[in-house]
Structure formats: C-alpha cells, structure tokens
C-alpha cells in the first residue's frame, strides 16, 4: 500500500527532495495535517479563540510529562486524553464563571505549563522533551500516517456536523441559544477537536509554533474574502501552500520544517494584508 503511494509520489515529483523516504512521509503528513489546521483556524479566528488554542499547546506540556512518567511507551495517548480533558475544563469554567475569558485561560495555561515543567524536570531528564518544543516533521512513520488519515476523516466528519451551529454561535451566543443551539455542547466539541489535532501534531510541528498554524491561515484568508465558502477555501489553500513550500525550502536550506512553514504562512498573511483594500467589500 504505502509502497504504491511512494511510487506515485516519485512519478509526480521527480525532484531530489522527494528521493528520501522521510521526505515522502513528511510530504504526505503535510497533505493531511495542514488542511485540518486551515479548516479549524477559520473558527478559531472567528470565535476569537487564538489564546485558547495557544493554551492547548501549553496544556500538552503536562500531558506529555504525565505520559512519560507513567511510562506508557509513546506519550501520545496520555497527551490526547489530557488535552481533551483540559479543553473541556476550560470551556466549562468559561461558561460558568463571570471572570473574563482571557483571565481564565491565562490561569489554566500558566498552571499547565508550570506543572508540565515541574514533572519533566523530575529526575533531571529534561533534554528528552526538547523535541516537543521544536517538533520534527521528518520523523513521521507510515504508522503515524495511517493514524493521521483516520483523524483527518474523523475531523472532517465532525466539522461538517457542527460548523453551522459554530458559525451562529460566533455571531452571538444568546441568539444561538434562542435558536435552540446548545452552545456549551458545540463549544466543547470544537474545543475537543482542536485538542486532538493539536496534540497529535505537536510532536511534528512543535509546541512553540503550533498555535501559529491555527491562526495564520484564517487570518490571511479573512483579509481578502467576504463569505464563508471563500474563507474556507483560502484558509485551507494558505495552510497547504505554506506547508508544502515550507517543507521543500526547509530541505534545501537545512532548517526546521515546522518553523519554515509558519514563516511562509506569515509571509502570505502580510501579502494579503497589502491587498485587503482591493478585496473586502
């Protein structure tokens, strides 16, 4: 199966960077992951959740640390479970408390990162965690790709189910509730979706920059679009384009792939900012 895909990639892209197996794997991962970031980022930006998604990255610090301490092989399972619970907790408290959202997220985010650091430094073995800070896109295995494929379709499915309600919610929560939308449920599902995507991709993209992939594509797209359909298309397009060019550029210049992808996405954002007056009605 994977051999056939490799063969097709060789035929489609007869370039030097595609010669290596790890580049083929990374390329396939980019094709699967960046559209998800593009998709989710539309509502992260529209619902002003950039700070929330940032805190998910911080929260995963604790998730990784717990996973490693429990010694359950790869800390991925512990990471996903912890991130989803963490996102539910923030959403729930945000809905119940009258304190401002950014304060609540700030409290949780800083607690999680401190707890994570504390647990990681336990026994003095902090260095083995450094890959999570920067991420390594070239370390993806065919098994990871299969898992990614599954997540890709699962996220797409859930996204189709909740999107309309999420859009109404982004306009006004009271109005959404008057139309019978359970706002807490919709918000929780979206938060869980974000948590899953963030925690599975953190080992490849890196904790420090993962949030930029949840903000930049949509931020660029909304500069030059006027309706939801184009917003989505352009956001996914931006994520995909910066993903592929970033990967190739990182190969030739020998740089961290995740960071290069983000820099290119940022460049696209500033480009769209220049063209904003010509597009937005």
């Amino acid at each position, binding site marked *: 199966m994977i051999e056939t895909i490799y063969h097709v990639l060789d035929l489609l892209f007869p370039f030097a960077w595609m010669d290596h197996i790890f580049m083929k794997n990374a390329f396939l991962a980019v094709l699967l992951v960046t559209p998800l970031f593009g998709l989710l980022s539309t509502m992260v930006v529209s619902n002003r959740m950039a700070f929330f998604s940032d805190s998910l990255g911080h929260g995963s610090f604790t998730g990784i640390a717990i996973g490693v301490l429990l010694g359950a092989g790869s800390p991925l399972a512990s990471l996903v479970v912890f991130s989803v619970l963490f996102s539910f907790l923030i959403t729930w408290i945000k809905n119940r408390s009258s304190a401002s959202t950014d304060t609540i997220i700030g409290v949780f985010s800083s607690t999680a990162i401190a707890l994570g650091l504390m647990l990681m430094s336990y026994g003095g073995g902090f260095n083995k965690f450094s890959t999570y800070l920067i991420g390594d896109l070239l370390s993806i295995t065919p098994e990871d790709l299969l898992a990614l494929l599954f997540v890709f379709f699962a996220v797409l499915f859930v996204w189709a189910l909740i999107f309309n309600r999420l859009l109404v919610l982004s306009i006004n929560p*009271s109005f959404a*509730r008057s139309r*019978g939308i359970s706002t807490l*449920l919709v918000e929780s599902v979206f938060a869980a979706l974000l948590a899953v995507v963030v925690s599975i991709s953190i080992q490849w993209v890196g904790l420090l920059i993962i949030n930029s992939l949840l903000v930049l594509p949509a931020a660029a797209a909304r500069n030059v679009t006027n309706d939801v359909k184009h917003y989505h298309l352009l956001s996914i397009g931006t994520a995909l384009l910066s993903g592929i060019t970033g990967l190739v550029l990182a190969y030739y210049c020998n740089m961290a792939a995740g960071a290069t992808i983000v820099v290119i996405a940022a460049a696209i954002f500033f480009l769209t900012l220049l063209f904003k007056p010509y597009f937005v009605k």
Partner: protein
Amino acid sequence: MFKTILHHHALSGGDCAKLCCTKIEDFSVHIGRMDIFSHVHMHIHCGQLTALIGPNGAGKSTLLKAILGEVPHTGVLHYVDAKGKHTGHPRIGYVPQYLQFDVSAPTSVMDIFMACLSKRPVWFCRGKKLRPRVLASLARVKADHLIDRRLGALSGGELQRVLLALSLDPLPDLLLLDEPVSGVDKNGLELFYEIVADLRAREDMAIILISHDLDLVAKHADQVVLLDHGVICSGTPEEVFHDPRTHAVFGMLAGTPEGGDTL
C-alpha cells in the same frame, strides 16, 4: 448542564381561552446576592406589541433572557395558542441588543441564513435553493438588497433588520426584541418600529420590545410595562406615561412623550 430554551414546561392558562397568549408569572432573577428583578407578572396577547421601558440596569435585558431560558429564574411561563391547545412552550424569536461582532469576519448575510436554515455546512451548501426563501425573508424587513453584503459592513439599523428577518424564519409565537441603546440612527429606528408594528398585525404575533425611545413607544406600542427591579406600572401608553410613578422613575423630562424627548 446542556440546557436549552425548551426548559419551560409551560402550563395552560385558564382564562385565556380562544386567544393565544403568553403569561409570565412571578418571574424573579437573582445573580449572587443581587436581586435583578423580582415578582414580575406580565400578560401578553398575540397581535400585541408590548414595550418594556425602564432606566439602565432595571433588568430589562435580563428579563428577556429569563424568558428565553438563558438565565436561571423562578416563576413560570404559560403559553396557550389560538386554538386553546397547549403547545408546551412558545417558539421564541430573539433579536439581541448588540453584536460583539468582529467587522472583519468574512460572513455574508446569506451565509448566516444558510447556517440557520440548512443542515448542510455552509461551505458545502450551494444555496441556490434557499436563496428565494432568504430573499423573501429579507424583503419583509426591507433588507433584500443586503443579501450578499458582509455582516460587518452593515450599519446598526441594517444589522438589526437582518437579525429580525432571521428570527422570523421559522415564524415564532413570541418575538423578543432588545433594542440597542445606540448605534441605530433615527431613520433606521423609525423604519424598524414600522416593520415591527406591521408584523404584529399581519402575523398575529406577540411581541415584547425593550425600548429606549419613548416617542416611538407612544406611537406604536399597545401595552407599556415600566420595569425597575420589578414592574412599577403597566397599561396603555397613555396610562403609563401619565402615571406619577413613571415621572418618578424617569424624572420630569420623560413625562410628556410628545415633547420629543428620548431616553
């Protein structure tokens, strides 16, 4: 935890036979140790425009949210439809006061209608089928020319009319309007009142409107309720505006609604 607006187990109202009506009985809301309002009784018939007036912080918006079921409250909501059948709970339409809306959000008027009316996600929805229905909805509030505009590019009055059109599809039994204190110009406000008054007659709908413009209330409302942490007085606009208690709440300025004063 996942409570929705359906939490009102509305009972039948005995003395309302043959007329659809909504009765709010003994509504009270406390947040923490603060009494927002208590013992509010209101009786609203269909085809009636009830204006809710009162000073800032009187609990008007909270009352609407309590009727919606969004704010925990005590008291019951009775609803009986025109045929005397007990429909359980009224279908409530709601136009919120203001939108904390990001003006740069790329959402068109058509998009938000599709999100509300269609099950298919907006980015997958062709929208050709819905377009005539949306245009008809918007035409009812004189906003059909706005269908492809971005929500953020609308003026306060235009946005208010678009939201009104949204809350009218599907047609509600009870319409709650929270009029913004500011952000809508005088002409836009008058157009809005004309549309609402027209709706009341044509659709036989019960409407509760929070208003800050006493001139327009005097002109269009059938019933006025003065709220200040509880119902101070209620009745026809004439009765309420000449009630000494109204003068006490608003001061002398508001005593003569014909005088062109706006609160």
